[in-house]
């Protein structure tokens, strides 16, 4: 254990702890941009610089491990001036478009500019202009807003193990590149979007759906595979507009392409909205299946649904539909006995619904003919 004093407060920490983490334990704030607690330290943005007694120059706290008896100063006019200069340099070629940026209000860079009161910029000059847009369907890559913190590169390599992107080119032309500069073609987990501290990486489907105002956040559990990742649904005007995940969960904030981006089915125009009762005879062959549209225009047109099924079903009220089901099930049960009726429950429904369904089959109908398809 090492004893370290930060801004006059002393703490004992494990060998190998960085100055930044030790400061965090003491609840002393140090600004960062490239640092992410779940990724290896980089020391790229230079915002986390601190002064250490005995070392002539300021050092980056995220890459400096503590030593015994270390004395650290995290803030003084000199350090703050350096930090402000670093920020001004980063902002010198940053698009000044917070008012239309998806990230505004949730942007680390914007927040730091606010704290350091940067409005005018001493270093205004050449800007990086990237007009080419990445054509992938999920992730908007606005390289003009990229500050080269490298979090996306690290998360793709260190967490996802994919390595779809990396630094390319030199100096002012440096940028985050895909192989051969083609459209991003990866697992689209969106981990890079989750860790991006600016508006450089955002979800394409979030665009102009809403930022902070009138947004409710609801905690829930992912409806896809059995991992059980925690989701935060961002809801505006009865519509899920974005999904994120907290870092203090079993999935550590990481999600996959389905959990993070595949929620449009909730508001799909194809959703069933009324009980339907069959009018066409059973043996009549169904109208041909409408093909799922190929080449990226997924989904069935809503108008198709109406014409297509109106020949098979008619809409009914709940009252009528439930009455009809109850009557038919009773008739069949009286005629053939309860074991002529069977129920399939669902691995997609909640525990409460599954419990009630089997209770209904067992106690209400009187049969143990109850199963679900994925139980093995």
């Amino acid at each position, binding site marked *: 254990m090492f004893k370290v004093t930060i801004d006059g407060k002393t703490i004992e920490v494990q060998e190998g702890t960085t100055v930044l983490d030790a400061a965090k334990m003491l609840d002393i704030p140090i600004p960062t941009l490239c640092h992410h607690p779940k990724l290896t330290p980089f020391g790229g943005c230079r915002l986390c610089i601190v002064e250490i007694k005995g070392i002539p120059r300021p050092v980056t706290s995220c890459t400096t491990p503590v030593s015994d008896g270390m004395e650290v100063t995290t803030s003084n006019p000199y350090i703050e001036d350096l930090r402000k200069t670093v920020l001004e340099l980063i902002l010198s070629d940053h698009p000044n478009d917070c008012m239309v940026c998806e990230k505004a209000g949730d942007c680390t860079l914007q927040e730091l500019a606010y704290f350091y009161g940067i409005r005018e910029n001493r270093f205004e000059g050449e800007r990086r202009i990237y007009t080419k847009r990445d054509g992938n*369907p999920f992730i908007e890559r606005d390289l003009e807003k990229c500050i080269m913190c490298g979090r996306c590169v690290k998360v793709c390599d260190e*967490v*996802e*193990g994919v390595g779809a992107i990396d630094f390319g080119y030199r100096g002012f032309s440096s940028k985050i590149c895909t192989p051969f500069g083609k459209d991003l073609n990866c697992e689209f*987990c969106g981990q890079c979007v989750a860790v991006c501290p600016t508006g450089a990486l955002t979800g394409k*489907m979030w665009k102009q759906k809403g930022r902070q105002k009138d947004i*409710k956040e609801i905690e*829930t*559990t992912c*409806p896809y*595979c*059995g*991992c*059980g990742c925690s989701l935060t*649904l961002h*809801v505006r005007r009865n519509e899920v507009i974005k999904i994120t995940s907290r870092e203090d969960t*079993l999935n550590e904030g*990481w999600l*996959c392409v389905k959990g993070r981006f595949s929620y449009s*089915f909730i508001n*799909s125009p194809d959703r*069933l*909205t*009324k*009980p339907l009762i*069959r009018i066409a005879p*059973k043996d009549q062959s169904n109208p041909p299946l409408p093909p*799922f549209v190929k080449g990226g225009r*997924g*989904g069935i047109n809503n108008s198709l649904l109406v014409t297509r099924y109106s020949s098979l079903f008619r809409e009914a009220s*709940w009252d009528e*539909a*439930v009455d*009809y*089901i109850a009557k*038919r*099930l009773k008739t*069949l049960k009286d005629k053939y006995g*309860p*074991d002529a*009726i*069977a129920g*399939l*429950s*669902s691995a*997609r*429904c*909640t*525990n*409460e*619904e599954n419990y*009630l369904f*089997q209770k209904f*089959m067992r106690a209400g109908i*009187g049969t143990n*003919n109850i199963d*679900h398809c*994925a*139980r*093995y």
Partner: protein
Amino acid sequence: MAGLATVFGSGAMTNSITEIEDNDVLFVIGSNTTETHPIIGLKMKKAVRKGARLIVADPRRIDLVRFAHLWLRQRPGTDIALLNAMMHVILAEGLEDKRFIEEWTEGYDEFRKTLNEYTPEFAEKLSGVPKDDIVRAARLYASAEKAGIYYTMGITQHSMGTNNVFAIANLALLTGNLGKENSGVNPLRGQNNVQGATDMGCIPDVYPGYQKVHIPAIKDKFERAWERKLSDRPGLTATEMTEAAIEGRIKAMYIMGENPVMSDPYMNHTIKALKGLDFLVVQDIFMTETAELADVVLPAASFAEKDGTFTNTERKVQRVGKAVNPPGEARDDLRIITELSNRMGYLMHYNTPEDVLHEIGSLWPAMAGMDYRRLEKTGLQWPCPTKDHPGTPYLFKGGFPRGKGAFTPVTAIPSKELPDREYPYVLSTGRVLFHYHTGTMTRRSEALNKVIPEAYVEINPEDAMAIGIKDSERIRVSSRRGSIEIKAMLTDRAGRGMVFIPFHFREAAANVLTNDALDPYCKIPELKVCAVRIERI
């Protein structure tokens, strides 16, 4: 699940997801984890970065192979030969955990003898895995302090699926890799709430909490609680229901949130069965292939439109929160079931979904300690019998529910339908990362469809060359049960002699081809192996 329940007395993942990253050795067999359980896949990659050794056994060169120290490419359906040979090596080299076997298992002596014939040479002949690799895998797994086995449908969806599970359980028992942190047998459940649906008694022979319907004392307890006479006759499994419907023994079905037309094998058979019913009710969020055959279709609420709980693959009960209102007149399933039950004269009344959870807890002690307030933050893993119980991250600490773990001798038997002259290729089915199950949800996502817009069949390039098939060419794949047209994808992900088709796509549905042969114990269909023919069109 039936397999694990027989061996240990309880069928579920024995460890937690967070324990994965501290494994010394991970043995992943029959699980394409990074695509089907992406976040568990991340934990496995993390474990490898932290120094764990990863053994992957899979007929396909799945993505996880990139991270593996040892990849065993067994032929589809030959897992028992492979596993038995690993155990043969473990015994021959004295790597078994004698103390664990003595203390915690039964049936060892008899079991031991059955392994004699499974030499690595013999297994190489059956499975195609080089014998040296089998020896290396055995040594790696047996010498690890904290070894976890992970498997999914690649193990279970076989006509000998239960036996495959027995073989895996035997391996864990033999090496004592059970009942402690980071060590165990972990079936990864494929859907958000399979664990929960099973826990809740949506299986034909048990009430909630795996309490057998035919045991009089248990039936009495549920009869008192539900105030009705109950049947002690175990019901039919899903696959048996299809058969019974065809034979006319089942007249009516009520299907809540499932799409058996797409998910069950031998699609034409399933459609015939459902069409022949006198009455079919389907309750779902979309007009599925199954709903099209219904007499009444009821519009239900999606996960974002209701309150409740899901139980994930590690037995963790977690909250589902209502975020938006259901569209139109769609209703949540609880309300639909309650109303229908009331009209049929069996009265149900619950003010909130939480009332239902409390009733579950009163009938199954493992969930008695749960309420929504406790579940709010991170969820709880059952067993959680009391309000102050913290939940159970890993099972079988200090013993199995059935007393001792039972060794179950299994022999390698071939799959029901093997390739022959007429149908020379083995077809395996499964999922891809970008779609989910029968595709009702994911195929409605424009973005996902852009990445994988249509069905394809993975063929080994050498096989393709032999038939004269080019990449992206449309070809015909046929089995004894049906035929589909589909795009060819030439890739060495598929081994020679096998092809793979994801089953998400209705226009080229893999389950038109698959075999409905069943495992005799738990009636799981053999979706991972059937014989097919491939032709140019």
